[in-house]
């Protein structure tokens, strides 16, 4: 059994994470990670077959910042809004400071003059660590279900 207090803490971490992305406060996104981190968005077919290619691969918090810079300043794309739903947490404490967390997620995307649609659905396969500033992601791997992405996946999930 995971301590209910720890479960609440994890829940709050993911709620804050989703809120930062959904409220378009992208500059805050790297703050959820430790400096030496790994962030990946991987199609399930690559994940299951052990193929290393990822749609997004960030091997440090600085690479997360480069993603933010690109989304904000260099990428050309239609405006959009997001909504993350995250559920079914599984928490396994390797040590009190190292937590393996998996959860399901769905990201809805709304484009201008269009209906709200599912942009991406999958599972998070995460490693959460306790730092002096609270819980942070050491690894966050987003394994998405569909073979196909509806056009582009610009913002992190």
């Amino acid at each position, binding site marked *: 059994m995971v301590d209910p207090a720890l479960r609440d803490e994890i829940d709050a971490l993911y709620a804050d994470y989703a809120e930062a992305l959904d409220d378009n406060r992208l500059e805050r996104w790297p703050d959820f990670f430790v400096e030496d981190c790994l962030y990946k*968005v991987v199609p399930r077919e*690559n994940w299951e077959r052990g193929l290393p290619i*990822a*749609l997004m691969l960030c091997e440090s918090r600085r*690479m997360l910042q*480069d993603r933010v810079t690109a989304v904000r300043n*260099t990428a*050309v794309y239609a405006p959009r809004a997001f909504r993350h739903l995250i559920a079914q947490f599984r928490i396994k404490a390797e040590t009190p400071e190292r937590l393996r967390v998996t959860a399901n997620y769905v990201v809805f995307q709304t484009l201008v003059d269009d209906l709200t649609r599912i942009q991406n659905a999958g599972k998070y396969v995460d490693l959460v660590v306790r730092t002096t500033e609270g819980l942070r992601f050491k690894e966050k791997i987003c394994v998405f279900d569909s073979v196909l992405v509806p*056009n*582009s996946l610009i913002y992190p999930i």
Partner: protein
Amino acid sequence: MDDSAPRLGPDTTARRWPEGGLARVPYWIYTDPEVYRAEQERIFCGRSWAYVALEAELPRPGDFIRTYVGEKPVVVVRDLEGGINVLLNRCAHRGVEFCQHAPGNAREFMCPYHQWTYDLRGNLMAVPFRRGVRRQGGMPEDFRLEEHGLTRFKVVRRHGVIFASLAEEMPGLEDYLGPTMLQYFDRVFDGRPLKVLGYMRQRIGANWKLMFENIKDPYHASLLHVFLVTFGLFRADQPSAVAMDESGMHSALVSMRGEQMASEGTAEMKSFKADFKLADPRLLDPVREFPGNATVVMQTIWPNLIVQQQSNTLAMRQLVTRGPAKFDLMWTFFGYESDPPEMTERRIRQANLMGPSGFVSVDDGEIMEFSQHGIDAFPRDQGVVEMGGRDVRNEDHMVTEAAIRGFYRHYRAVMGL
């Protein structure tokens, strides 16, 4: 503007190529369902070598993958003798797409509907109840298994790349590409065994030809792609070239990497950011690996392939058509079996530039949908393709749309338009 009153019935003027020859492209070629149907027959099932797979995806006998030629589902399979077969994924009995699992390994293919069974070369081996049950029913006496095999494509292979065709008479791949394009093809596929690193796939709400136009258009690359230009990966004033085969059906965009600096090539680009720096420079740490000075070669091969070499990221981009205003872009990233681990790492890291989340290619997917949205309501209008002149010739700069004109010269000949 299309401001005429709505018409009913057949409109014979609607599909006439506009005045202005190669420098104009009518918008109905991106929207008309009948044009799309004709393209399936004349282009994808016509005299073309369509890319279907890399041999590295099918290393062992029995290995198969599902893929598409145009919109037609096919299975690519290595048979027990090591040969490669490309078979229509459609049972000869009632048209069922029999192979649903991919990728995999099989000794035979069995349609789940009535269990018709085929060998790996598409020959029909068995039909249940062929002789009936208790002397009742069964196939007619003159039913011949050998007349009901799967539809087989012709196959060519070169240095690990597999192409297929339904045409009766096809030149070899070398003649199909011509000497100039063959040289670019062999630059990446030099005979070293390939290693597949993974896949990305995206569904883009645009006509498939817009993808080819995009890769044949270096003019946009030096303006739209702020990331490329800002970090010096592609810029209008860098030494570059646009090359085609004699027909214009295939082409290559070639360029050399420069420094990040303001210059004549960025002066007219409103979005250039001279002061941007990567916080983690490992993303742009390419090493030279091919002979010559080119650091990027984007080759388009009629009718469905783009071979991408940008720095150290290598990929096949295969087009699968899904109707007039929709296509899937299937990216197969690869390296060489002989790559040291740090080169594999570099290729995987540089894949951040490409695909549905790529620092560069995000722009293209979005722009193609903007194009389709702009075109959809105006089939009788036309696009202007005059940059670099109104003719088709190879150039040693990138301020040109010559390769788009070359593409449509060939397209019109094939389509009879």
